[in-house]
Structures are given as structure tokens and as C-alpha cells.
């Protein structure tokens, strides 16, 4: 069927460009330029890896949650992160990526995940601050991606954004509860805020003048706003929330600019960001090692389930599916 299009050189590319220009979605099996495919696979895989690694900082606290209610909420949240990773790996696979291959690239350090998950979670207030700031920043980043030009990614993002709203609200509610508690609890919230504020701002990526891929990504509709635009939006949203909570954001330069109509804020330490991305954050090695152990220790389960399925299929072939316990199609 595609022989007709291939007869005319450049027609496939023209059709792709036209789809993008009309703000229509690219769908699986559409012809796309190799660079678009590589960019999308890298972007989606990196996002999927972030969700999967992102289970660890909070997962640390499940056994030490202060009440059954908080434990149930935290388990649900961490399960969501796993689910988000799965939606995204599923989207990456529609571009021809192989899930086992992506996991191998993550555990061997050939593909990255968000630098924020390389920071430790020292107290239970960190669970709340991650929900408020880290998930808040993620929402800022992700809402525009619901309009990504790549259809399966955009649809995964719609599901993810709906669920992230629960994540942010449970975090803020947790912090409000702690702020009504003892002086020591309020100090914990302030300390967690101090540690996570700057790394949260780094989640938007390097400044626009140091982000060489932004122009191409925006032209392809795989990025809808620049890093600095989204970072500013996040600061503007978060300052009043901090005020309401009663914590101070650790930036002496933070102030309202009436002429810009935005909050001014201080310089981000991009050397720290670069160091963490390159693997020198507090928890990089631990996060990847933990992921690799989980994968290795699960190998026998995957093999056993595959062996059982093969045996079951062989038995169905021999005596017919209607005669087995799996024949109850209802």
C-alpha cells in the first residue's frame, strides 16, 4: 500500500511535516524521520525510567508511615508511579523500542532518568514535599505534553496528569497536617523544603540558552514550552502555596516583580545539576543498583510464568482448551 508514496521521493517527509504543521497527531506505524523516532524513544524512555526510579525515594517510607491512612495513601501513590512507567514503556514500544532493551539501558547507565530522584528522603516530611514540589513541577512539565505530537505519548500523559493531581494534593495535605503539629514537625517541613526547592527547579532542565535541542523539539511539537518558561510558571504557582503553608522558600532573591508580572528568583546552581546528571548525586549508584537487583531477583518469576504458559498452551493443543480449568470463557 505504501509503494505509491515511495515512488515519489520526499513525499513521506512532506506528509509528516504537513501532519505536524496542522497540529495533528503522529500515530504508530506512520512514517517518521529517524531523528524524530530516536528523539521520541529517548524522551519517553527517560520519562518511563524516571517514574520507575521515582518509586524508590518514597518507597523507602512505606514501612515507616506514621498511620495506616498514610501508609495506604503512600502505597497507592508508589503503585501509580509503577503504572505511569508501564504506560510510558508501552508508548515507547509503539515506536519499535524493546522494553527489555530499555531496562538494560537503564541499569547499565546508558539511559538517564530525572536527576531529582538522586536525592535522599531523610524524613517523613520529604514524602509531603515530594508530592507538593516534585510532583507539582512534574505536573507543570507534563500538562503541555498532553498535546505532544506523538499520539500514544500524549494519551499516556493525559492519564498520568489526572493521577498526578492526587499525588500533589496528598503531599500538600500531609504538610498542612505537620505544620499544625509540634515545633519539631514544622522544622522538619522547613528542612525538607530547603533541600528540595532547588533540585525541583532543576527538574525543568538547563536554561534556554544552554538547551540546544529545544528549537527542534518545539518545531516537532514534542515540546510545547521552553525550560525557562515552565520553570517561571512553577515558581509563580508555588510561592503563594508556600505562604499558605507557612514555610519559607530558601531563596533570598525571591520577590514579586510588578513590571514583569512574575516572581524573580535567584540563580540555580547548574554545576550541581550537571554533576548529578553525570552520576555524582548522593544516591545515583544506590538507585540504579536497587533497580538492577529487583530486575535480577525477579528473573525466576518471569521464567516460571513463561514456562507455565508454555506448558498450558501445549496441554490446550493436546486435549483442547475446553477441557482445562482455563476454559471458562464467560
Amino acid at each position, binding site marked *: *500500500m*505504501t509503494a*505509491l*508514496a515511495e515512488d515519489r521521493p520526499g513525499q513521506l517527509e512532506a*506528509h509528516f511535516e504537513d501532519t505536524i504543521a496542522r497540529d495533528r497527531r503522529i*500515530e*504508530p*506505524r*506512520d*512514517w517518521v524521520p529517524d531523528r524524530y523516532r530516536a528523539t521520541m524513544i529517548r524522551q519517553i524512555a527517560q520519562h518511563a525510567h524516571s517514574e520507575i526510579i521515582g518509586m524508590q525515594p518514597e518507597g523507602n517510607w512505606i514501612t515507616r508511615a506514621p498511620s495506616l491512612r498514610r501508609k495506604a495513601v503512600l502505597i*497507592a501513590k508508589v*503503585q*501509580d508511579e509503577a*503504572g505511569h512507567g*508501564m*504506560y510510558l514503556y*508501552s*508508548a515507547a*514500544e*509503539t515506536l519499535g523500542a*524493546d*522494553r*527489555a*532493551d530499555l*531496562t*538494560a539501558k537503564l*541499569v*547499565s547507565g546508558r539511559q538517564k532518568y530525572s536527576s531529582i530522584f538522586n536525592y535522599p528522603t531523610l524524613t517523613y516530611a520529604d514524602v509531603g514535599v515530594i508530592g507538593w514540589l516534585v510532583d507539582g513541577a512534574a505536573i507543570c512539565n507534563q500538562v503541555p505534553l498532553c498535546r505532544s505530537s506523538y499520539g*500514544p505519548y500524549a*494519551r*499516556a500523559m493525559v492519564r498520568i496528569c489526572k*493521577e498526578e493531581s492526587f499525588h500533589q494534593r496528598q503531599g500538600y495535605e500531609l504538610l498542612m497536617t505537620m505544620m499544625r503539629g509540634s515545633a519539631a514537625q514544622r522544622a522538619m517541613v522547613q528542612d525538607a523544603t530547603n533541600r528540595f526547592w532547588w533540585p525541583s527547579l532543576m527538574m525543568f532542565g538547563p536554561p534556554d540558552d544552554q538547551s540546544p535541542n529545544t528549537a527542534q523539539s518545539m518545531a516537532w511539537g514534542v515540546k510545547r514550552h521552553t525550560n525557562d518558561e515552565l520553570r517561571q510558571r512553577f515558581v509563580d504557582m508555588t510561592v503563594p502555596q508556600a505562604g499558605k503553608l507557612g514555610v519559607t522558600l530558601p531563596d533570598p532573591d525571591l520577590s514579586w516583580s510588578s513590571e514583569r508580572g512574575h516572581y524573580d528568583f535567584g540563580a540555580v546552581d547548574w554545576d550541581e545539576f550537571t554533576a548529578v546528571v553525570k552520576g555524582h548525586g548522593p544516591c545515583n549508584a544506590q538507585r540504579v543498583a536497587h533497580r*538492577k537487583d529487583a*530486575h535480577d531477583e525477579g*528473573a525466576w518469576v*518471569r*521464567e516460571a*510464568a*513463561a514456562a*507455565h*504458559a508454555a506448558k*498450558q*498452551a501445549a496441554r490446550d493443543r493436546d486435549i483442547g482448551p475446553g477441557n482445562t480449568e*482455563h476454559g471458562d470463557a464467560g
Partner: protein
Amino acid sequence: MDETPVRSEWPLYEVFLRGKRGLNHVHVGSLHAADPQMALHHARDLYTRRNEGVSIWVVAAAEITASSPDEKDPFFAPSGDKVYRHPTFYDIPDDVPHM
């Protein structure tokens, strides 16, 4: 360095959900599972954590036969030139009621 990926022996299944009674099943994504029963359980855990479905279909991706995705494909040409199949093809005076 782990150069050879551990191959997943689990095939890919496409997942379809009926959001509520009265609606069709709609494709929502895919997952890997060892067999169809496991695919159903994983689909429930992955795609219906918040009451998104009242019924789930899972279909082995390898079993799906699909048309070419290119919209300009001649495959769909037979429906392109039959405008008389649409109600707007017929001119009816505005004062004819209930039409």
C-alpha cells in the same frame, strides 16, 4: 556492563476497556504477560486503578491484522467519492419540518 538484555519471553497484549455500560470497548494501551489470564489481571491493575472500566478485553498483539496507517492510503479511497452516502448531499427546503 550488561550488554545483552534479558529477553522478555512474555508476549505483548493490547488492552481494550469498556468504561461503563452503554459504551464500546476502547483501546487504552498494551502490556506484557505470560498468558491471556495474566494479561487480564495485569490490565486490571494497570488500567483500572480508579474505576475506569467495567469490562476488559486483552488481545495478543501478534493476532491483530491492521490497515496501513497512512491516511492518504488508497485503501480508504472507495468511501471518499460517495458523497451521496451523507445526509447533507440532499437539498431539502428549510420549511420542511422534522427533516
